[in-house]
C-alpha cells in the first residue's frame, strides 16, 4: 500500500488479488447474501483506496484501514438504497444427518443462516469480523474505535443473540 500511496498505482492489483475475496465475503455475509450489492461495494472500496491513498498512514496495518473504508462504504450504500436481504440459491452441504433429531442437518444450517441474517446489523458485523475475516481483536478494536475488552464482550453478546434467534426459529419450526 505504501507503494500505491507513493504513486505506483499498479500495485493496487496486488492488494486486489490478495484481499478481494475476503472483502467480498465480508459484504456478502453482512448483507445476507446480496451478491450484487457486495460486488458494487467491493468495487467502491478499491476506488476509495485509490482516491484516498494519500491518507494512508504506513504505521497502521493495511487491513484495519481497508476495513474502515469498507464499513464507511457500506454505511453510505445503506443510506442510498433500502437494504434487501436476498439469498442466493446455494446448496447447503449435506454433511451428517442425525436421524433421531427433529431437524435435519440441512435445516439446522438453514435456520442458522436465517438467524444470522436476522441479527441487528452491528451485532452481525462484529460477529462476521471476528469469526470469518481473520481479524485479530486488536484490529477490530482499531476499526471500530473501541477498546479490545469491549470487542470481546460485543462478540460474545452477538453469539448469544444469535443463539436466542436460532432457538426461537427452531421452536417455531418444530
Amino acid at each position: 500500500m505504501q507503494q500505491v500511496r507513493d504513486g505506483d498505482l499498479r500495485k493496487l492489483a496486488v492488494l486486489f488479488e490478495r484481499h478481494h475475496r475476503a472483502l467480498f465475503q465480508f459484504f456478502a455475509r453482512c448483507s445476507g447474501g446480496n451478491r450484487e450489492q457486495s460486488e458494487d461495494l467491493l468495487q467502491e472500496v478499491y476506488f476509495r483506496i485509490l482516491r484516498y491513498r494519500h491518507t494512508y498512514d504506513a504505521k497502521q496495518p493495511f487491513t484495519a484501514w481497508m476495513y474502515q473504508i469498507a464499513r464507511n462504504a457500506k454505511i453510505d450504500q445503506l443510506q442510498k438504497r433500502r437494504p434487501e436481504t436476498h439469498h442466493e440459491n446455494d446448496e447447503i452441504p449435506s454433511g451428517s444427518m442425525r436421524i433421531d433429531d427433529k431437524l435435519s442437518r440441512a435445516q439446522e444450517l438453514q435456520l442458522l443462516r436465517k438467524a444470522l441474517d436476522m441479527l441487528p446489523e452491528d451485532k452481525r458485523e462484529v460477529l462476521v469480523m471476528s469469526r470469518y475475516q481473520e481479524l485479530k481483536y486488536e484490529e477490530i478494536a482499531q476499526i471500530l474505535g473501541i477498546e479490545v475488552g469491549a470487542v470481546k464482550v460485543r462478540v460474545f453478546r452477538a453469539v448469544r443473540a444469535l443463539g436466542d434467534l436460532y432457538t426461537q426459529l427452531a421452536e417455531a419450526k418444530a
Partner: protein
Amino acid sequence: MNCEKVQKLLPEYWAETIPVNSHREIEQHLHQCDTCQAEAEMLGELWADLDRLPTLEPSTDVRSRFYGMLDAYRSGVDEKPKRNWFHWAIPAGAFAMLAIGIFVGRVNVTPVDPQIAQLRGEIHGMRQMMALSLLQQQSPADRMRGVSYAYRLDKSDGDVVTALLETVKSDPSVNVRLAAVDAFRKVGTGVAARKALIDSLKAQDSPLVQIAIIELLVDLNDRTTAKSLQSFSVDSAVPKEVQESARWAAGQLN
C-alpha cells in the same frame, strides 16, 4: 473467574486462540457452573456451525471491473462521478459497464449538449480501457468480451488496434481470433492496420482465420491489397482452400 469474565473469553476459547492458563480457568468454571456450561456448549456448537454455512464467491466479473477501473483511473479518467449519473439513468442493479453499453446506444450520433459530448468521450475512453484489459485475461470468455467491447468502439485507437492484432495472431482460442478479425471491420480500417493484417496471414496457423482475414480485405475493398493476395494464392506452404480464397479475393479486388 466469574461468569461474566468467562463469557467474554468464550469466543477465543472456541477458536482455541486462548492462552493455556485462561483455558484451564474457563474449564474449571464451566465444571462448577451449570448455566454457563449449558450455554457455552450450545453456543459453541453454533460457533462451529458458522463455518459450515455456504460461502458466496465473487463472480468472474469483479476482476475485469476492477482492472477496468484501475486502468481508467490511471489514465486520469475518473469513474466515480459517472456512477451517480448512471444510477439515475439506469435501474439500480445493472452492471456498470453494461449500463454504459445500454446508455450510449440510446444517444444520437450528434449530441446537442456539450456535457453529453464530453461524457461520451469519457465513456469511449473507458470502453477502450475495458477492451484492453479484457483482451489480456486468462479466460477465453473474458477475451471474447474484450473483443466485443472493441467492436463497439466507433473510433479507432492505436492501442486497441495493436491489442486486436495480437489477438488475431496468437490467441489460443480460434473463436476469439475470428471475433477479433471481425472487430477490424469497425476499428482497423486504417492503412497501417490493413497492412499488418496482411502481414499476419502467413504466420496464422488456423486456415479459418486466414480465410476470415482474406474475406475482410475484400469487404474493405482496398485494391492495393490485391497484389499481396495474388502472391499469397500461389504460395505452396498455404493450405489449398486458403489459396483458393486468396485467388478469388485477388480477382474481386482487381
